[in-house]
């Protein structure tokens, strides 16, 4: 078989940027027409024979992740067509190394510093002047007393569902905060709370939270550990189980708090069918419309995260809410400025001045880096 070193078909090897090392980025250019596959070969410094290093996908780019940091390599590729093959190779040795900073995340770091800074400043300010903080009314949290009270009057238990995520989810953690408040009210009113769980770690946390809530309400004896139980790790199995509990126990109040998926409406509609007062809250934006349609009160996304501050009125927590609100305002202003400048840039570009559009695109690229 005859092979060709054709002009144009080339290979470039570079240390993969922003990684933990152990990877070299291979890029091929001007792949010959009719290429069926591209074979990659590698020669470590000091070796005499090229070893096979896999295949390069048709787009012509791949990462060689089987390299050793610090060892220098030469690369060769063979583009195989039906009747011949073409070869290209690197001229200089290249080695991989780990990086100390992922530059694609610089915008995230900037945002984190600014946002974290604002939140911390407001926490400090709140400590100095606790009276100067206002938090708007959240009807869903105000309705907790009403829901638990109504349920107690009817002689029915309260059902609390903490969603389908683990304890690492921010929504689940926020639901634990709300559970504490619900637990205290249930203990004070002498009612009962049923807490089925999807995740055993959440179950253990909920047991401890309710135990503390009952103790703080002066009714440690009223807490029944068995009312907080594990159900299943299957999504629709969990939905079926909770639906069954709703239909058998007929709770007077249902709290759907946490991260939910497609089962949200199944749970909320079953709760509606038994006439329970329903207070939902989720950080799953796709499920919010279902809860709004089927529940009496809903905590919309971020309102869940404000629950602890709203309930406790602790200045430091209120300060962090105010800080994040200010950051939100800043983002809103940035979006507004972006829209105005973007529109102006497009108009200028259409009028024959592309420089503003160039600036606008560069800014967009810089911001979008953080998605990498």
């Amino acid at each position, binding site marked *: 078989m005859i092979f060709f070193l054709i002009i144009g078909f080339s290979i470039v090897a570079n240390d993969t940027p*922003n990684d*933990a*090392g152990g990877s070299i980025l291979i890029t091929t250019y001007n792949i010959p027409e009719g290429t069926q596959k591209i074979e990659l070969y590698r020669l470590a410094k000091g070796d005499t024979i090229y070893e096979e290093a896999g295949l390069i996908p048709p787009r012509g780019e791949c990462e060689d992740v089987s390299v050793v940091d610090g060892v220098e390599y030469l690369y060769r590729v063979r583009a195989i067509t039906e009747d011949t093959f073409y070869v290209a190779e690197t001229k200089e040795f290249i080695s991989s190394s*780990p990086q*100390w*900073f*992922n530059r694609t*995340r610089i915008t*995230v770091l900037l945002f984190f510093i600014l*946002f974290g800074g604002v939140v*911390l400043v407001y926490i400090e300010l709140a400590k100095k002047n606790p009276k100067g903080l206002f938090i708007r009314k959240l009807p869903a949290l105000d309705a907790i007393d009403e829901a638990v009270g109504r349920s107690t009057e009817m002689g029915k238990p309260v059902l609390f569902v903490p969603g389908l995520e*683990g*304890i*690492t989810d*921010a929504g689940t*953690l926020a639901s*634990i*905060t709300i559970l*504490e408040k619900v637990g205290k009210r249930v203990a004070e009113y002498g009612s009962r709370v049923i807490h089925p*769980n999807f*995740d*055993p*770690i959440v*179950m253990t*946390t909920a047991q401890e*939270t309710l135990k503390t809530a009952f103790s703080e309400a002066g009714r440690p004896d009223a807490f029944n550990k*068995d009312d907080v139980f*594990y*159900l299943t790790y*299957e999504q*629709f*199995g969990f*939905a*079926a189980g909770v639906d*069954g509990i709703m239909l*058998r126990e007929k709770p007077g109040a249902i709290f759907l708090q946490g991260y939910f998926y*497609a*089962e949200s*409406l*199944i749970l*909320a*509609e079953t709760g*509606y069918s038994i006439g329970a007062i329903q207070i939902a809250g989720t*950080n799953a*934006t796709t499920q919010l419309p*279902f809860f709004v*349609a*089927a529940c009496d009160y809903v905590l*919309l*996304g*971020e309102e*869940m*995260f*404000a629950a*602890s501050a709203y309930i406790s009125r*602790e200045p430091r927590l209120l300060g*962090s*809410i105010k800080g*994040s609100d200010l950051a939100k305002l800043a*983002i809103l202003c940035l979006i507004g400025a972006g829209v105005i400048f973007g529109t102006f840039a497009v108009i200028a570009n259409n009028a024959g001045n592309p420089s503003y559009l160039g600036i606008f695109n560069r800014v967009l690229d810089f911001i979008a880096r953080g998605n990498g």
Partner: protein
Amino acid sequence: MKKRVPLLITFITGFIVIVSFFVPHRPFGALETETLIWYSIILGFTLLIGVDSLVRLHTRQIRRKKKGWWYSIVFFAGFFYCLTIGIISLIRTPNPFQPGTVFFYGYETILIPLQSTMFALLAFFVASASYRAFRARNLDATLLLITAVIVMIGRVPAGHKLWTRLPGIANWVFDVLQMGPMRGIMIGVALGAVAMSLRLILGIERTYLS
């Protein structure tokens, strides 16, 4: 001490995870994956706690002959069935989820159809919830009803037959009217989650410690 140690662990872990997000160099780069592996291992053990909770609950239901106690018998039948065929499949093959094993057969012919049935019920629940939400009681509900009708008809071939521009209007409702508020809520959720994470790392938010 009872609270300080967990708070210190939370602070150190949270700080390291933040650093590992920006620093790919060893040992930080691999920490995120490592912690996820740790979490999976811990979760594996806590599942035993879950099973213990479940078995105790249903044993009590049967012993006390509580309302619907026979469902607990169904639970035990399913539990021991899965356990037995799981062990048998594990002895016969290294992976019980491999097609052809008894365990996989049970999974495919019992569990998946049951889950699909529950999922299918969603269609009826969507219909009943939509009926209530779309009743034209006031101006807001009427606007919602009109928008919903446009979107629903615009999404089916009959909508295109009725008026060729209807699918385009439905798409505009999705891409513009709906997307704006949705993005607003998403930004709020993201910022709220970051603020909450900061509160947890700094030990301001302590509810999870009970």
